[in-house]
């Protein structure tokens, strides 16, 4: 937290940049803006705790205002925590060391669509659903539909290296972002050119995608667009076990088929998600597939992938479960009486691994997490040619806050340790934030020092989102 003199001085200087209406030191505003959707933050709020607060919140309206604000913060060595939609699940926007929360929601312009190149230029504060609806009007989709689409924004997508439910076909945000504008901690405005590919040194754009506000602030992006597919078709197949389901997925990608949705639910998750609505063998897994594109091409892809599934021991369940999931895909994001009652807390560790390690990671994590009093259910989703992600979903309910938060931490510790031990990577799309910050060094291994050296050069005063991504942790 800032001392009163520094706080007053910073407030007066930044007020001149953004105007009185766009800066606040009110405690109520700080509380209402403090958190993202990190389950631990939400559980603590429900339990009556107040999270760490910023000293002030600034709402810049232009990139120039972002630049000038950062220059002041850098000069005064004030921590800056960027805030996008506040929908992240890792505590990335919690201002653990106070300072300034820089809220980008006013940067909400959607600029031109380049129909020839199928690109759209957009400011960081545009909410995902607003961009998707805007491009839909012109016959396009962004192809990026995370569950948080209604709440998260473009800057947050890019800063956390996020992925949508159809990333198997369209790619993750790092594949969808062609150009970036960002502001470095010293206030300089930097642009990376929007080109499909290049061979001019390392791709600096990728340095900032996933940097979680620790290296600079993303203010604008040029994103790829896709024509809205002629058809989206759904198919569902059950398998006797995880292994046969994963084998089917691996072989589907191996023959060159790219479904838009590929989700394999383990027996626990399949039972919870589908047994109320569909009849299928008890203890079996459920694979959901969707195909986007030209109907004739879908005919071929669907038949070929179905045959692969049947050869692996799958049972065709028609379009029902897959289509139902699509139509209700946002429902699980809403709170319920059960999940918000008492000291209940659940979360997801969205790991990623290659096919040779995926099953081992799954079994090792499940065993370790269940040993810590967690109910664990999982689905394999966001699958690719070389491997994919597992959503290790866990839930625990404890008699009091202290035990609940400790249990939650232990489940995370053993889950991530098992993941790393078996050769997985601890996040596919949610990012690091606070929840995984302490594991970052172990995850990156020898490359962590590279990241740290880059951080030290770009942000010598350590003002940018300290405590996140394993960087800038203060004693």
């Amino acid at each position: 937290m800032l001392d009163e003199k520094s706080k007053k001085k910073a407030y007066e200087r930044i007020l001149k940049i953004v105007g009185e209406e766009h800066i606040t030191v009110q405690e109520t505003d700080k509380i209402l803006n403090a958190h993202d959707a990190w389950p631990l933050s939400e559980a603590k709020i429900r339990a009556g705790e107040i999270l760490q607060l910023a000293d002030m919140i600034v709402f810049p309206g232009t990139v120039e205002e972002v630049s000038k604000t950062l220059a002041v913060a850098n000069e005064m060595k004030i921590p800056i925590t960027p805030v996008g939609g506040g929908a992240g699940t890792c505590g990335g926007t919690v201002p653990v060391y106070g300072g300034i929360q820089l809220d980008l929601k006013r940067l909400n312009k959607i600029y031109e669509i380049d129909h020839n190149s199928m690109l759209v230029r957009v400011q960081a504060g545009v909410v995902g659903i607003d961009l998707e609806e805007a491009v839909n009007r012109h016959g396009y989709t962004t192809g990026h539909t995370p569950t948080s689409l209604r709440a998260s924004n473009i800057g947050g997508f890019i800063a956390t290296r996020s992925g949508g439910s159809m990333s198997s076909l369209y790619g993750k945000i790092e594949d969808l972002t062609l150009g970036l504008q960002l502001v470095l901690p010293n206030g300089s405005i930097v642009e990376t050119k929007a080109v499909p590919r290049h061979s001019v040194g390392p791709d600096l754009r990728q340095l900032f995608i996933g940097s979680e506000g620790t290296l600079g602030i993303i203010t604008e992006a040029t994103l790829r667009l896709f024509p809205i597919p002629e058809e989206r078709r759904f198919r569902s197949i059950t398998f006797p076990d995880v292994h046969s389901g994963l084998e089917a997925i691996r072989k589907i990608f191996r023959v060159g088929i790219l479904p838009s949705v590929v989700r394999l639910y383990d027996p626990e998750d399949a039972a919870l998600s589908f047994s109320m609505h569909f009849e299928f063998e008890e203890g079996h897994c459920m694979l959901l597939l969707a195909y986007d594109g030209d109907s004739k091409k879908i005919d071929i892809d669907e038949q070929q992938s179905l045959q692969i599934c049947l050869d692996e021991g799958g049972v065709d369940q028609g379009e029902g479960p897959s289509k139902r999931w699509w139509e209700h895909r946002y429902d699980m994001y809403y709170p319920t009486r059960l999940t918000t009652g008492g000291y209940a807390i659940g979360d997801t560790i969205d790991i990623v691994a290659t096919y040779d390690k995926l099953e081992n990671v799954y079994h090792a994590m499940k065993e370790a997490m269940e040993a810590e009093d967690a109910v664990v259910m999982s689905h394999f989703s966001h699958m690719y040619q070389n491997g994919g992600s597992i959503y290790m979903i866990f839930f625990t309910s404890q008699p009091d806050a202290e035990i609940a938060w400790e249990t939650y931490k232990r489940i995370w510790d053993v889950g991530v340790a098992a993941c790393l031990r078996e050769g997985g990577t601890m996040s596919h799309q949610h990012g690091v934030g606070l929840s995984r910050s302490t594991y970052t060094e172990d995850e990156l291994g020898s490359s962590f020092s590279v990241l740290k050296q880059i951080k030290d050069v770009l942000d010598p005063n350590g003002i940018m989102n300290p405590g996140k991504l394993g960087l800038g942790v203060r004693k």
Partner: protein
Amino acid sequence: MIEPEKIAEQVRMCAACPKMCRHVCPTFFAWRSDAPTPHGRALLMHQDVVGTRDIDERGVEVLYQCLECSHCLTWCKPEIDIATLVEIKRRSLVSKNRQPTGISELVSLVKDNHNPFGEDHSKRNNWIKTKKLKGKKILYFTGCTAAYREKESAQDTVSLLEQLGFSVELTPDEWCCGSPLLRTGNQEAGLELAAHNVDVLNAVDAEEILVTCPGCYRVLTTDYPENGHELNKPIRHVSEFLKHELNKLPTGSLDGGVTYHDPCHLGRHSDVYDAPREVIKRVSGSPIVEMERTRDNAMCCGNGAGLRTLFRDYAKKIGAERINQAKTTNAKYLVTSCPFCKEMLDAQSDDTLTVLDLPEFVMMISKGRDVKTD
């Protein structure tokens, strides 16, 4: 009446939600901050309920930065009605005399003048021209906006009813329905108006009461009976009334498309969506060109629940956005079925989009047809 335990459960769930409705919240649109959002309001109330933190002065302001439009409810899977919870909390704030000054001034205006505009009560509806016809007697509850700010709407309502053969009764003794007070937490003052209006309206010899303002409609049909103030005649909104007279309505053709704005109190709060559409379709001969956000997903005009009184520029910003949404349909006419919405939307529109209240629209068609016939 919602039990305190239920309120606690609902604000807890809303405060724990990753903001699944925020993208449609008009005040989020206007402020672009997490404070004036359903989640922000719920979090304030949750912390108050569990004793973490009292609602401070800024918290009071945040609770009055709500249109009570219930658009969030359309997107809420657990069906948490933050508008109602905000209104209940506002009542508690008013009981402790903690409402914003602007709301206290509004209450005084209504108490002194029987309307929220501070206009002379004696001139409320005595200017409306009526004919003494022998048809079925309809008591037209004018409402403050039509009486003082949207006079064409009021006169067209009467002219239209008479054209349909009804005898229109007006009472100079009607007061503000109480909606602006009830929605801002001033229940006691609002119900005083209810008591007066029930006495006055019940004494008039008429077969039913017709209202054009959905704010009035909601309080007359819901708030009055819920609080023991029973009217002795059926109450109908003009859109439903005209729907029953569909075959008698004038018809004509227009030189441009028509889009329709659903008023929150008529649509989401009273579930009347089809009647105005059927009327518009019948009289114009063509279907409505719907906006993307329509029916229970329609954006509020920005006028409701004291927002215009307290935060005029932000209310206008919301109204201007609704006009932008209407313009994307390329319609030439934006019809609503609420004088209050009409006033806001008309003020934010320009020459390319004509904004009309439903009775005005029907009478415009009627006059057009007459011109052609002549």
